[in-house]
């Protein structure tokens, strides 16, 4: 057969399962492209384990040519921590939504960051619980209408949008990598993810990347509105950039306690 023009999917994408299961214009596809490119560039297809959460991320269960485990809602981090602890030669990627990471799975996020677990966590922030039909998430913007904030998110009653990377940066120890990218800047996002993977491979520490993403279905936006919401509304609230790189020192790092005045 003559080789004709073919889509330039990242090599690690599994062509057999494309078109993927996401809605038209879904940001997940763009984040997964950035992740795919990063994996291609690092040449780690043979030893990467991909874990996806419940949420629209579950639709990636057969997305990659990677050994993949689709876990429970909010539980992708512990599953991958469990794997990494016994198979340190593997590169583990936890791919989750903002609801999974910042609400139901927040204890795992906080604890794995604090323990500096060698996992790379990618959180797709679409300001909603998308899979379940668009409820308010910790990341929903002030005033934003969702199915459970039908009159707009009232920050007096429900608080302000959760700043995930800022939270992680506040506790992650030396060696951690923390960044926030956006589907509006795919190459930058890819670079953040790549650094987050390298950070794990080098054994430095916890790696965390939030990606501002799009959910046109639940936002009920057309393409122009979608881009505008991400680039104007979201990016203003959620600042883009690197929050922690492994070379920085961190406050609160104190000397090792040699005598703990306890035990004998």
């Amino acid at each position, binding site marked *: 057969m003559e080789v004709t023009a073919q889509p330039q999917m990242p090599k690690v994408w599994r062509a057999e399962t494309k078109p993927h299961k996401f809605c038209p214009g879904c940001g997940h596809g763009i984040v997964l492209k950035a992740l795919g490119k990063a994996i291609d560039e690092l040449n780690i297809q043979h030893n990467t*384990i991909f874990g996806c959460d419940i949420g629209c991320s579950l639709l990636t269960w057969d997305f990659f040519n990677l*050994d993949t485990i689709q876990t*429970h809602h909010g*539980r992708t981090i512990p*599953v991958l921590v*469990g794997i990494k602890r*016994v*198979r340190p030669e593997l590169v583990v990627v936890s791919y989750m939504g903002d609801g999974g990471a910042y609400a139901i799975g927040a204890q795992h996020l906080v604890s794995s960051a604090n323990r500096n677990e060698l996992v790379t966590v990618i959180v797709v922030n679409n300001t909603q619980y998308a899979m379940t039909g668009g409820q308010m998430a910790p990341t929903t913007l002030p005033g934003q209408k969702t199915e459970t904030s039908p009159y707009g998110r009232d920050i007096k009653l429900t608080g302000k949008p959760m700043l995930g990377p800022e939270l992680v940066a506040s506790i992650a120890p030396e060696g951690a990598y923390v960044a926030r990218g956006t589907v509006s800047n795919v190459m930058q996002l890819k670079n953040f993810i790549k650094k987050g993977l390298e950070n794990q491979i080098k054994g430095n520490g916890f790696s965390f990347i939030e990606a501002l993403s799009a959910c046109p279905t639940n936002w009920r936006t057309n393409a122009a509105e979608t881009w505008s919401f991400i680039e104007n509304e979201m990016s203003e609230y959620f600042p883009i950039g690197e929050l922690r790189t492994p070379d920085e020192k961190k406050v609160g790092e104190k000397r090792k306690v040699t005598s703990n005045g306890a035990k004998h």
Partner: protein
Amino acid sequence: MDIKPIQDEKRAFMTGNEVIVWGALAAGADIMYGYPITPQNEIMHYWTRLVPKYKKDFLQTEDEISAGFTTVGGVLAGKRAFTATAGPGNVLMQEALSMAEMMRLPTVVIVTQRGGPSTGTVIYSQQEVNLTCFGGNGEGLRIVYSTSSHQELFNYTIKAFNTAWKYRFPTFVLSDGYQSKMREPVTIYDPEEKGITIEPTESLLGLPGTPGVERDPAHLRNTYNLEDELYNVVKSSVKEYNSIISKIVEYDTYAVEDAKVLIIAHGVVSRAAKAAISSLREKGIKAGYFRPITLRPFPDEALRSLVDNVDHIVVAESAYGQLENIVKNNLYGFNIPIIGYLRPGMGITPEEITDFVKAELSL
């Protein structure tokens, strides 16, 4: 395993929690994931002390949800991973175990029952039978061994790993706070010297070869889009479960040949039940005793085959009818009166059973 933790047969006098650790070591366990809860704590304490010596691993997680899911991770990665919990921790762990049940992951969980419901007491009970056998949003396709002595704790901890990896259903050793905390004699041994082959583990993820290039990727999921997809998965698990029941069920009997009164108990209570037999027989009551060792699957055929001449069944348990219901279920079709000596969260002595039987049967 670099160093064999147990070289020769060794008699020892130790707590049940210590016995469990030696059992896990003997079975070649690689890693324990766990969260503190009484009365299982000392399993972690002993294990962490031995970790460097035997080149094992340990991870203390942030809660039992995480302990369950990290255990799932360890198992997926092909390691002999286990965890231990009790009471409210067992409740929380059901989430991960329902995933293990769906995905047929050979998880091993030690349950040291304590008083319930809720935080209850940290002491003892047999109130986690329902939870362990049928917990989660599924059909309870699990294997549950209920132990009654330190020797069994050792034997069945080893067996749990083998059963789990052979049949791929979540496997539990159901113990309790008494067994955890008490000291009694036990003989520990290297299972291979006793001719017990340790089932090999298998990686479900992170296999050799580049996925999609040299081999198909492992795409594991527990979520289905259509009712029929799920139905087929559950149906095939049920089928497989039913087909292995006869290989798995275990039970113990005593003085059942001519028994008119059958006392049924499991776990540590069965010791009291067995002891009560002699004193009842001394008083002329033809009592016998049946103990399911596997609560799930339940040895129904064994039980059904020996009740034909029984006039009364007494179920004794430190719970309010959890075993009694299982017994009734499995004896459906008979109409021998069943009475329960039901003591949620309380220990049971031989004397109490004896007195109860005498009083209830007006003998």
